[in-house]
Structures are given as C-alpha cells and as structure tokens.
C-alpha cells in the first residue's frame, strides 16, 4: 500500500476524479474571517514571529515544529475534553472508490489531525503537515495532504462535512479545503509577516469554530 507521502497532487486528482478550483465559496468564507486577537494572543504571536525571523535559517524541521508551528497552533488550542483534540503522528485508513470504481484502501500517517476521540482519531476535521524549507522535491506536500483529506472524507462518509487542511514549507503556510470532489488552495501566507501571521491564526480559529459547531 502506498503511504500518504508518496502521493502527488495530479495523481490524487486523476485516481479519484477530484478537481482543483481556483475559487470556492468555502475558501472565500474562510479567508474572509476576521477576528481581532486578544492582547495576550497578539503578544505571544509577536514573540513567536520574532523567533521565527531570527532562527528560520538555522532551525531543523523538528525545531520549526516544536518552537514555532505548534506554539502557534496552541494559541488556538484544539483541545476540547470529551469532544475532540489534536492528535500527533496519527495513523488512519479508509477505503475509497477510484474513477474505475475499484476499491482502493488508503492508510497513512499525518503529522497532526484534529478529530473527535480521546485515544484515537474518530471523525477527522483538520490536518496539518510541516516541512523543512530546503526540502528536496521528491515529495509533494500538497498531494500528501490531499490524499489524507480524501481518506478522511471517506472515513466520515455520510457526514458531508468539508475537510480542512494546512501545510507549511518553512515560513510559508498554505490552507486547503476539500468539499465533495472539489478542492482549492489558499495563497501562501508568510509567517514572519505580522499581518499574514494574524490571518493564519484567524484561519485556524475559523476551523476551531467549525469543529465546535459540528461535534
């Protein structure tokens, strides 16, 4: 079975008949969401942003994750006891039908997923993968995220919920939404830029509100 990280975007599109759209209502609503940060959130954001600016060239992938990406995620706090939480290095699987109507079982690991469940992810809502900036091009971060989101959609069969995702390559963050057979990707947000970083946090807060409404 091919792991998530071996899937490329075009291959995912062709195998499962999904389409990339330049604009989608779901993405527009997501990007339009604006919510002023609390003073303490903004202060924390600034500390992290400055650290990222100073060290982004020196950090290894784990440093970026532990000292920047996760603390930003923590500002939003994807934990709601008894309802959902963020799971690290989570493995899950689902069986999908490809364009030729053949069953195709997908199984893989994602860096982080927000899902219902206490010990294991049950209904996934939001995915995150993180990469080093100087990454070799052998893997396709978007393809890898997309296949995980498709697997989540199949696992949540019948719920008809959009699946949200995000990946970053160094300081650049990209947001994805998958609705039915269509998906789109946001522009790149530069996490070392204060305005972009504020919007990143807003985008994450939007996802949290969506999860709260649906669990």
């Amino acid at each position, binding site marked *: 079975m091919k792991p998530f990280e071996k899937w490329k975007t075009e291959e995912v599109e062709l195998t499962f008949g999904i389409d990339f759209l330049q604009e989608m209502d779901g993405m527009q609503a997501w990007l339009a969401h604006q919510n002023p940060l609390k003073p*303490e959130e903004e202060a924390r954001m600034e500390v992290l942003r400055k*650290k990222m600016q*100073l*060290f982004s*060239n*020196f950090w*290894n992938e*784990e*440093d970026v*994750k*532990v*000292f920047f990406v*996760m*603390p930003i995620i*923590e500002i939003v706090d994807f*934990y709601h*006891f008894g309802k959902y*939480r*963020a*799971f*690290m*290095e989570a493995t899950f699987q689902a069986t999908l039908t490809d364009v030729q109507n053949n069953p195709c079982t997908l199984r893989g690991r994602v860096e982080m997923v927000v899902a219902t469940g*206490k*010990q294991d992810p049950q209904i996934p809502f939001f995915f995150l993968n993180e990469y080093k900036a100087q990454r070799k091009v052998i893997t396709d971060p978007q393809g890898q995220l997309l296949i995980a989101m498709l697997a989540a959609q199949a696992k949540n069969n019948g719920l008809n919920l959009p699946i949200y995702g995000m990946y970053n390559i160094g300081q650049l963050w990209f947001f994805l939404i998958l609705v039915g057979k269509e998906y789109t990707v946001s522009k790149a947000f530069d996490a070392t830029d204060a305005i972009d970083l504020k919007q990143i946090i807003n985008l994450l807060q939007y996802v949290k509100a969506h999860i709260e409404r649906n669990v």
Partner: protein
Amino acid sequence: MKSFENWKYEEVELTFGIKQNENLPLMIEWLQSEEKITEEEEKIILRLQKRLKRFANAWNEEDLKVFFVIPLIDVVDFYEEGKFRAFTEATIGAELKDIHNQEINLRGRVELLVATGEQDPRTPFFFLNEYKPQLKSQKDPQGQLLIAMLTAQAKNEAYHIPIYGLYTIGRNWYFVVLERKEYAVSRQFDATEDDIWQIVAILKKAKLYIEENYAKLINISKKQI
C-alpha cells in the same frame, strides 16, 4: 558505535568510572530553587496540567512531548539571542577515555539540548529526553541521559562546567546533574500534582545556571585569546 539509547546507567558508571552521589551539593542546591512564577505563567501551567491529567493515558509519546513537555519547557524559554538556545533532535559527539585509558568515540542524538550556537549545538549545558510510561525494559532513560551528558562534558573539555539534564517518563520528571566524575538523580516529580510548581522553579534555576556558565565560558575564552 553503540547509540546513546543502548547505554545502561551501570554500564556508563563502570566504563567511565563515574559514581552516583546522593548528596551531591549541586543537586541539593538546584532542587532548593525558589524562583518566582508570574501570574501569567501560572495560568499557562495550570492549563497544561489540566490537560496532562485528562490525557496522560491517551497520549502517544509525540502528543506528550508537543502538548505538555515542550510547552512547559517553553514557560522558561531556553532562548537567549546570541548566547544559547534549545535544539531539538540534536546530534552530538566526542571522544572519551574509559577507565583503561582507551579512547571511545561516542555519538548520539538527544531530544532537546540547550547549548551555545545558532545552527549547531557547540557547548552543551542542559539535556532533556522524554519517554512514554509504557517504557520497554531494554531502554534505560537514566543511562541514555548520562552517556549524553558525559559526551557533553568531554566536548566541553576546556570548561569544567557541570552538565544539567532531565528525563521524563509519562507524568514523572527526574533531574540529573553531572559534575566531573560524580552525578546525582533527583526524586521523581509528578507533574499532575503540586510538584509541577517545583518543576518549573527547577527549570528556571537551570536557565540561571546556564546564564552563569555561559558568562564563565566567555571569560575563559577571552583569557585563552
């Protein structure tokens, strides 16, 4: 070459002639730390502790690290621009002499390390390793930390500074200090209990020691120049 995680503590003691000293003054002093915790820090600590209490049994090792251990370490913030910083998944190496005066090349990876340097760790001061409670018995957290600290000591050969460290097993935290050929391990501190305040105070004191040792190191380097 045997990796750090395959060393047991007794083997480290016998190979390099180091001894555990329960009454090591450095450890006694370290644990007596009474560093102040601000209101803002208190809020963060309580939130993290609540989360640990609820999820300790459900978390995998990475969850525990990312959602509890590192955020708690981050309260102290082992980053001092231009001086030292925390490095994760850092590899260090050095040549040590065993009790028979044979050179042994040691090299391994630690989960977190506070050291001088911007891109790579140069002079290490403080170590952290983290484990899941359902630890397989073949791994010895104390041995693994000790061998890394000994390697750091050899790497810092020119500066006789003590090396500080800690390892966690699930909710329990253990502090370790190595001074020349002696080391000490603290009692366990349970982060789901009131021990958490002392854990943070001890971490703050560790940062203070790092700052002091950094200053010493700069002084020594200047004299050498």
